[in-house]
């Protein structure tokens, strides 16, 4: 990515990814839980009734990837700095979730070896069946443009 684009990232604040709807299967949720060593059946709301550990929402990051791709940023150029979740309801297998991601802010800095852009993304998750907001995810990704 050119330095010109790095300098222009702030003008992209507010850019939105296309709205998507995804339904996770029980197998997908169990595979995730097993990989991250969640107690089988663990959930943010009830330890014994589903497999929805809070970070399961990381599966729905397509919007972040879409925005970065549109800006000419490759995944290999970014590191994860922060991740926040506000949780309403736990994910349930087979439940359709609609979500949209937007670039909420950009802060540019310089280090000894790279120009850095801290890009904050916000994603709202809504349950399709009743329109209830079930979670919000906020992530800060650091785009690094190596200079040394």
């Amino acid at each position: 990515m050119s330095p010109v684009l790095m300098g222009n990232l702030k003008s992209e604040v507010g850019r939105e990814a296309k709205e998507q709807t995804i339904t996770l299967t029980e197998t997908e949720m169990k595979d995730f839980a097993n990989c991250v060593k969640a107690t089988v059946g663990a959930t943010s709301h009830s330890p014994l009734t589903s497999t929805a550990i809070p970070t399961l929402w990381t599966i729905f990051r397509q919007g972040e990837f879409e925005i970065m791709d549109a800006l000419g940023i490759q995944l290999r150029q970014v590191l994860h700095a922060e991740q926040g979740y506000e949780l309403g309801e736990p994910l349930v297998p087979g439940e359709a979730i609609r979500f949209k991601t937007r670039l909420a802010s950009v802060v540019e800095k310089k280090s000894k070896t790279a120009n850095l852009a801290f890009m904050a993304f916000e994603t709202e998750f809504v349950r399709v069946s009743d329109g209830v907001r079930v979670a919000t995810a906020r992530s800060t990704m650091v785009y690094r443009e190596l200079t040394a």
Partner: protein
Amino acid sequence: MSEFSSTNLVGFKSAGTITLEWLKEFARVSGDGNPIHQDEAIAKSMGLPGVIAHGMLISSLLHSRALEAIPEDRNLRGFHIKGSETRFRAMTFLGDEISIGGQWQVQGSNEIRLELQARNQKGETNVTVSFTLIRAS
């Protein structure tokens, strides 16, 4: 914020050793195909010392420890996670042995702040998560 008391500790437990196979599996189940988590040459081309673990894998291990700790501690039983804030403070590398523990403190009649950290075998803190727990309604 008041000091944590010694009785509010969540003991450190091993969460495993980071392997390439584990990172590939996390890439599969999470959909995060960033090659710096799987390909050493690409990681080095990006100025990194080598393959690094997905931050969200370590964050997820911290969330799993929280879900384990809540029912174990009678003071935390009946609470659930309302929110969490993860900070990725240092990179986690292949071969790193991760252990997770921390402490909690009452914030009000219905809220608890649970702070967990992931450490490597050198005792360095790589990732921290601050959880907001509220009493289940």
